[in-house]
């Protein structure tokens, strides 16, 4: 089944490259999106059909693929409206849509791969396709961000490959012939921890560029800043999940061995540093896209510390990732509208609520949700994380994290309120808001998803996550 998925994506790419009509290319992307939803359904009901020697379906992969399927369709809708308004030419739209399908296919490959080398190769593919997706406008500042993203990602992914090589040295000692996850999980206890520790450090640093956490977060922030807002939304949600999965696969195999405590220490250090840098930058950010990009960074830091906290923490981490993906992309889509309504400027926007009440409501509700206030699902996951943290009774970490989160809370909310409610000091130009009902509906739908799953503890979600614990 997975092979047919990959083949169909290749076919769709070819078709798009051969077409000449913008609307038809968008139609192909929508068709592919619906096919992806069907594929998720197939994965959920018949997982054994998709297993083969290279790909393995487990519930985390299925969860992330469902998120990807939903979000990519919504992002495709937003992209169509974006390029209509910006009057892009046919060639850039074609390339963008073709690479978009490739990006989706690479991400599904990451989620469903059962072999560490294959995971790495698919993440490399997401770098290549993601860089092409970011380079949509043809300005100098976009080129600068794209160059930095490609270069830093390449160097980091090469470092991650070094980590995989060290892992294979450890595997060769016990005569394993390949790095598939089942074989590694069976033999985890007898591998030499020295190699594994070195491999973990390299893998954490290498894949931190995809996840947007401490050692290499800058290029991710820049990429989300200059890309078109649907792509920024996808980077904040599904690509972050892919980076997390790459680190989590390694961590989950070895967390019960003698290395587990050491890995926890390393992850705590990484996440505290992430939160520290995120809070520092958030106090200074004036550009609204960067604001939400740093907020993604903060949430990745929280997820990293959540997985060190035992079974409850891992459940909380996956819930957090799910809700964060949904809410953050909704916010990014809305910010796109904000920027569009302010003639493409990204900063010093005020009084948005008065210009566009529905959009303002979405933005307000979304930011409150991303700051984990009650009706949203993020409240539940953060509550679980804090509960596990307090049970661990590590005083210094608790104090640090809570103080950093308060700073982040303050910074984010002041900026958002300034955006929404400050009366504008310039002359009020009544701009007829050009919003599309479909966009607003979709964003409300996304926020509603997070609220629904948060309020009514969905058995479906809990089952899915618990199956992997």
């Amino acid at each position: 089944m997975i092979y047919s998925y990959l083949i169909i994506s290749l076919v769709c790419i070819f078709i798009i490259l051969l077409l000449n009509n913008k609307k038809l290319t968008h139609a192909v992307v929508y068709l592919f999106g619906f096919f992806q939803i069907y594929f998720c359904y197939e994965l959920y009901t018949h997982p054994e059909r998709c297993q083969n020697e290279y790909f393995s379906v487990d519930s985390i992969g299925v969860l992330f693929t469902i998120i990807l399927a939903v979000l990519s369709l919504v992002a495709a809708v937003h992209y169509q409206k974006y390029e209509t308004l910006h009057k892009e030419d046919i060639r850039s739209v074609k390339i963008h849509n073709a690479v978009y399908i490739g990006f989706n296919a690479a991400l599904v490959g990451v989620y469903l791969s059962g072999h560490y080398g294959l995971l790495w190769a698919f993440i490399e593919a997401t770098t290549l396709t993601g860089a092409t997706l970011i380079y949509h406008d043809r300005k100098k500042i976009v080129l600068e961000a794209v160059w930095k993203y490609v270069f830093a990602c390449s160097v980091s992914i090469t470092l991650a490959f070094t980590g995989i090589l060290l892992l294979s040295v450890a595997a060769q000692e016990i005569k394993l012939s390949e790095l598939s996850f089942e074989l590694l999980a069976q033999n985890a206890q007898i591998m030499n921890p020295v190699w594994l520790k070195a491999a973990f450090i390299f893998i954490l640093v290498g894949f931190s560029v995809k996840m947007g956490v401490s050692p290499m977060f800058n290029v991710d922030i820049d990429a989300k800043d200059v890309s078109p807002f649907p792509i920024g939304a996808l980077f904040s949600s599904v690509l972050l999940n892919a980076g997390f999965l790459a680190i989590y696969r390694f961590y989950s195999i070895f967390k019960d061995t003698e290395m587990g405590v050491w890995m926890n220490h390393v992850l705590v250090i990484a996440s505290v540093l992430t939160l520290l840098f995120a809070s520092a930058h958030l106090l200074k950010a004036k550009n609204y896209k960067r604001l939400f990009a740093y907020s993604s960074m903060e949430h990745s830091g929280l997820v990293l510390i959540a997985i060190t906290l035992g079974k409850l923490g891992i459940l909380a981490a996956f819930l957090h990732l799910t809700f964060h993906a949904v809410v953050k992309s909704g916010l990014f889509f809305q910010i796109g509208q904000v920027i569009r309504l302010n003639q493409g400027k990204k900063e010093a926007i005020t009084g948005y609520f008065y210009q566009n009440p529905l959009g303002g409501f979405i933005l307000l509700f979304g930011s409150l949700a991303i700051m984990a206030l009650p009706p949203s699902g993020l409240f539940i996951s953060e509550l679980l994380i804090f509960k596990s943290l307090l049970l661990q009774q590590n005083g210094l970490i608790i104090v640090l994290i809570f103080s950093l989160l308060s700073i982040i809370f303050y910074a984010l909310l002041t900026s958002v309120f300034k955006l929404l409610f400050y009366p504008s000091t310039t002359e009020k130009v009544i701009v007829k808001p050009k919003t599309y009902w479909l966009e607003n509906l979709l964003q409300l739908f996304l926020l509603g998803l997070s609220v629904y799953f948060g309020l009514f503890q969905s058995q479906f979600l809990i089952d899915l996550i618990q199956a992997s614990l």
Partner: protein
Amino acid sequence: MITFYILIFAISILYFSISVNIRSYINLLGVQGILLFLIALSGLKDFHIFQLIFVAVETLVFKGIIVPRFLLNVAKKNRVTNIKNFKLRRKMKGFYLILTTVLVYLITLLLGYTLKNDFLNVKYFSTGITAIIMGLLFIIINKNITVHIISFIVIENGVFLMALAIGNEMPMLVNTAVLLDLFVSVLVLGVFFNKLTYQFHDDSSDKLSSLKD
């Protein structure tokens, strides 16, 4: 014989530390490509013949000839000769880099010995890690984008050496390392570097500083 090639590879990293011209960097890169070709030929005896030819052709043709040729053309087009804009005191930069190289090599050798692993070929391992660490240092210290790309290829050469160390049991990994080279170099060098030099007319990374908070 392989020892000799790896020795010359380590010496080429020493010469990287003291280079002043872009031309010497590019020549050293070509030398490293040819060395990797010779190492691959003599080291990978258990490989299937087609895989061996693929790896050999990639190292010799791609890394030894095509990439240096391309970089030389770009450097000539931008009239870049001297590597400028160091962050350290310019005159002592080579001195400290050489000391660092030898120190890193010594430490990785000691590490390799204390680990005492039968599957670990210490000479490949320590030279590979030295190449990776020194490549990262070259990226940090220099401000030319051409030098950044060259140092990235040095890092890739180090990774390839380490993959050769365990290559006889897991041929998939060596293939992946080679494909990493091909794809990323083609995309990074070929597409984006061209666009960058076309728009900015210069390859100093000082020009790339307009993205701020």
